[in-house]
């Protein structure tokens, strides 16, 4: 779906030493759910912006569904294939009415009016916001605004959706609404998802986690394999999900638990089993 081949990037051509991306290869498979982690300034947002041609790599090439992002004639195809949702829900809304906001992208693409109407209704339904079609976004909660932003991108009928810290400014309720929506898109629509996040619990639900460090990919594996390396993750300036931390500490105390636990349910089951076994052995 997205294929980044040895890309480098600098904001400042004058001082090429300050490369933000330093030769990075990444292949994102169709239908996969990839989480991208990394400390502040590691280049996550920059990488995301090269995925839809907002930024062009200084060296190397990015292909989106086989299209080179440097190809200016395909730029609208690229942007409507790889939709992008940003961190601040207020700063990405153009219109003062929800349904006009969702209509913005297909209007830009020159879609027929009746088809735009159909897409707007369908996309609002998808994110569970149909009842707010005629409201003003300024009256909605952060989580609702962010779901509108997702609907506004879905209206382009993209194959892939890239979200740059979509939950960073939300309260826990808004965060779980948004994550549920994203997960649903990936599971039921087979939408390719790239989720940049600082929340380890969010990364844990992905199929694959990519950890960035100073413009390079440092780790790239399944969430359970990544989070079982607690010490290395901490070295990279990140945290692990709370349950992983718990298991890690228990193991240090000599309690033998599988190290690839990342969800509360898994942890719950493993500890229960351990306790049962423990009582049997005594």
């Amino acid at each position, binding site marked *: 779906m997205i294929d980044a081949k040895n890309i480098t990037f600098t904001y400042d051509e004058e001082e090429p030493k300050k490369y933000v991306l330093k030769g990075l290869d990444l292949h994102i498979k169709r239908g996969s759910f990839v989480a991208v982690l990394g400390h502040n300034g590691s280049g996550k947002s920059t990488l995301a912006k090269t995925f*839809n041609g907002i930024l062009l790599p200084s060296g190397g090439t990015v292909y989106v569904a086989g299209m080179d992002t440097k190809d200016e004639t395909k730029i609208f195809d690229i942007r409507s294939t790889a939709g992008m949702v940003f961190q*601040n829900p207020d*700063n990405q*809304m153009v219109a003062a009415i929800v349904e006009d906001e969702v209509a913005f992208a297909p209007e830009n693409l020159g879609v027929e009016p009746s088809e735009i109407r159909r897409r707007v209704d369908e996309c609002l339904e998808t994110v569970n916001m149909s009842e707010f079609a005629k409201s003003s976004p300024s009256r909605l909660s952060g989580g609702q605004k962010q779901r509108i932003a997702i609907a506004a991108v879905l209206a*382009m009928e993209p194959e892939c959706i890239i979200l740059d810290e979509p939950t960073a400014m939300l309260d826990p309720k808004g965060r779980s609404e948004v994550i549920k929506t994203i997960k649903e898109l990936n599971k039921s629509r087979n939408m390719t998802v790239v989720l940049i996040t600082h929340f380890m619990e969010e990364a844990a639900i992905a199929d694959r986690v990519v950890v960035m460090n100073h413009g390079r990919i440092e780790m790239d594996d399944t969430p359970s394999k990544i989070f079982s390396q607690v010490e290395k993750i901490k070295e990279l300036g990140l945290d692990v999900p709370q349950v992983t931390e718990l298991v890690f500490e228990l193991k240090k105390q000599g309690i033998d638990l599988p190290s690839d636990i990342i969800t509360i349910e898994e942890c719950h089951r493993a500890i229960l089993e351990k306790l049962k076994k423990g009582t049997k052995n005594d």
Partner: protein
Amino acid sequence: MFKDITIGQYVDGNSVIHRMDARVKILLSILYIILLFVIDSIALYAVFGVFTAFLVIISRVPFKYIIKGLKPMLYILIFTAVINLFVTGGETVLWQSSLWKGLKITKEGLTIAVQMVLRLVFLVIGTSLLTLTTTPIMLTDGIEKLLKPLDAVKVPSHEIAMMMTIAIRFIPTLSEETEKIIKAQKARGADFESGNIIKRTKAMVPILVPLFISAFKRADDLAIAMDSRCYNSGKKRTRMKQMKMTWIDAAASGVMIAFSVFVIIIQRF
């Protein structure tokens, strides 16, 4: 501070005024404003008042929205009234200050003051009625369509409309932000209420600086978000909501034109 601004506040409804074509509504509003500046007799203002009340009633916009639109105008209205009352010269003196002979109220001054205030009030009611019954997108689309012929003389009609759309969209966001900054500065001991005008103006600086910085950041983010959704300044752009004129527009134009002719005839004789 900006909470009372009703521009861009749309009140959903299905009245005949709501169902009018935005273009027709804008043109008729312009006619309404021109008319307002043509008339200058108190009797005609009374007629105008009745007509405006009629428009408000058939629009079924709750009266409180109309009042809300007038509230931020209060000081301007008082200022206009006072200035016109005392500055306008005239023959028939109604009242004169015993301390200073120059300070007097004349019949002419009183008439002009009342007229100016009524003009402003009707102006605000008329324009609020337009924005309260038209969705912001329809309003800006209407303006874009009306300006389209001027593209030939390099008027960027689409860009103007887009700028207005974004401005309307960001009024509530920026007003919320302003309030937040004011509160934050107050919490740090800033004083906006005391002192003379210069001192108070100076006190605004710590509000404006962060406000501008954040507005630029927002503009930057918005530009990227728009680019990401294939924005291409109006080339081959379509619209979800198509504008079309119906019998309502024909009827409304008829009523408005008849009213204008009536007013102008009375005004002339």
